[in-house]
């Protein structure tokens, strides 16, 4: 068998992307995972095995914050799954109804919050919900519900849920767009056949369309999961690195930032920072694996 000539152009096409991706993303990722196995003793880096993880999960000074952040993060994710994705599906279903006027306008407008930076989003909602400037108290007053108002971002029991809902407000455009695209790709013949059989309206949505868009809902769920367990910016801009009040809105991202960079009197600690990043990596990896091996394989995909 004659050896084929080396096709250099393939290497040339791949090289820039693969080099940058490997050097800036993959190597630092593994270097960070590796760093979590070391610690500083007298300014020298010493191999510590899994000690850092024992500290993180077991030492009450660390573990309390860690489990608190993890719990908050789980709640943050749950709110997104229960609020953001159903609203996204509902909006997409409405948008995709045939002969709807102004669909392009609605679609563009509802996606606007997604393109805003967290700094803007955090600031404007703080303004709206502020008890002092108070657009929210004023508006509740107009409908006679002023008694319902409390400083939501300042109260421990409401702050995290409020921030999660703000984040939902910001990102609902993404599930809406993806589901909308999935609904548009359902062929007309399928829907016409359903109509011939008398399956219309709501029952058509539940029985025909929903099963067909399940794979998209799966993708959205895993994207939401990864995004939420890696979130940082909104909490940081709205509540600061200390994720107040009293760490009620602390999630893994803010915890990582504080640990790595230090805050107030505590010095930054790259090794514990790397340990937290590794824990986050583990959590995200488990989520992605559950999605790839358990969920995705069971969702039937239809080829038209």
């Amino acid at each position: 068998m004659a050896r084929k000539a080396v096709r250099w152009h393939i290497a040339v096409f791949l090289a820039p992307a693969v080099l940058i991706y490997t050097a800036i993303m993959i190597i630092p990722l593994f270097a960070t995972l590796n760093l979590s196995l070391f610690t500083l003793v007298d300014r020298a880096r010493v191999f510590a095995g899994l000690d850092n993880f024992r500290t993180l999960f077991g030492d009450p000074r660390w573990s309390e914050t860690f489990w608190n952040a993890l719990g908050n993060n789980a709640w943050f994710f749950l709110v997104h799954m229960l609020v953001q994705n159903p609203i996204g599906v509902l909006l997409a279903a409405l948008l995709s109804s045939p002969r709807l006027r102004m669909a392009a306008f609605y679609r563009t407008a509802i996606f606007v919050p997604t393109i805003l930076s967290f700094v803007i989003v955090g600031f404007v909602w703080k303004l709206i919900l502020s008890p002092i400037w108070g657009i929210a108290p004023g508006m509740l007053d107009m409908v006679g519900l002023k008694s319902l108002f409390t400083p939501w971002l300042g109260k421990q029991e409401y702050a995290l849920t409020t921030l999660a809902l703000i984040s939902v407000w910001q990102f609902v455009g993404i599930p809406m767009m993806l589901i909308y695209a999935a609904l548009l790709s359902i062929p007309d013949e399928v829907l016409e056949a359903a109509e011939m059989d008398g399956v219309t309206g709501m029952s058509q949505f539940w029985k025909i369309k929903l099963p067909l868009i399940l794979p998209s809902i799966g993708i959205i769920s895993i994207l939401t999961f990864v995004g939420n367990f890696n979130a940082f910016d909104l909490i940081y801009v709205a509540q600061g690195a200390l994720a107040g009040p009293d760490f009620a809105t602390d999630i893994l991202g803010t915890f990582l930032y504080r640990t790595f960079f230090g805050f107030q009197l505590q010095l930054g600690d790259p090794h514990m920072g790397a340990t937290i990043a590794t824990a986050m990596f583990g959590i995200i990896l488990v989520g992605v694996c559950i999605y790839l091996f358990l969920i995705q394989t069971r969702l039937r995909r239809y080829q038209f």
Partner: protein
Amino acid sequence: MAARSPLGRTIAAHAVLIAYTLIALFPVFVIVVNSFKSRRAIFAEPLALPNAETFDLVGYTTVLAQGDFFQYFQNSLIVTVVSLAGVLLFGAMAAFALSEYRFRGNTLMGLYLALGIMIPIRLGTVAILQMMVAGGLVNTLTALILVYTAQGLPLAVFILSEFMRQVSDDLKNAGRIDGLSEYRIFFTLVLPLVRPAMATVAVFTMIPIWNDLWFPLILAPAEETKTITLGSQVFIGQFVTNWNAVLSALSLAIIPVMVLYLIFSRQLIRGITAGAVK
């Protein structure tokens, strides 16, 4: 459909969509409207439109008098445009290699590059910072550009290779028979055909770069390398009582993304339909 009045259904659909559109746009409205009002009017009637009496540009003059703001703007623009160009060019090249040629390790390479879609680059921050310190790149725009290029590549390669598979083989083979090199085929035949997909990738890549706070905060917090996002965050801290200035700064920060979004928004849905969801 005729069984339950379609008119009622249409009205209901519009009602829900209009309600949600209002919720989506209301905060933007609050920022922009109040940025044009005097301080007293902002506090007295936050929801009113500016009129002859309350109209005031003092916020904008304060912001623009601060030379830094242009600097931040320029930094953001440089970082976003250069990273975007890198992502689009290198991403398209890699996508072409993966979709066009059969070679050993093709699938593996595709999976390797796709890994970055699911695993966020932020998790490597600790080591990225150490690397940038070692390379003397801290507080340079280059550091941000490198990170954002790496961050954008996985999704770009994924979406663009889906699109490039649809480009007709006959066209490329005709080019080969005419003696075009593989590079010419890529640049003159294939790239122009996937322009809509490039627009989609551009939007998806650009927005997170422009809005990112994490990496500017960690890799380039110096005054001369601040991006507009970090700059406005700091600005809010400094001018916490000067609401006119803060609101004007935020209004100015919204403009560039908004313009680009409106330009590309038509492409967006087409790109999603053809690529990512499959």
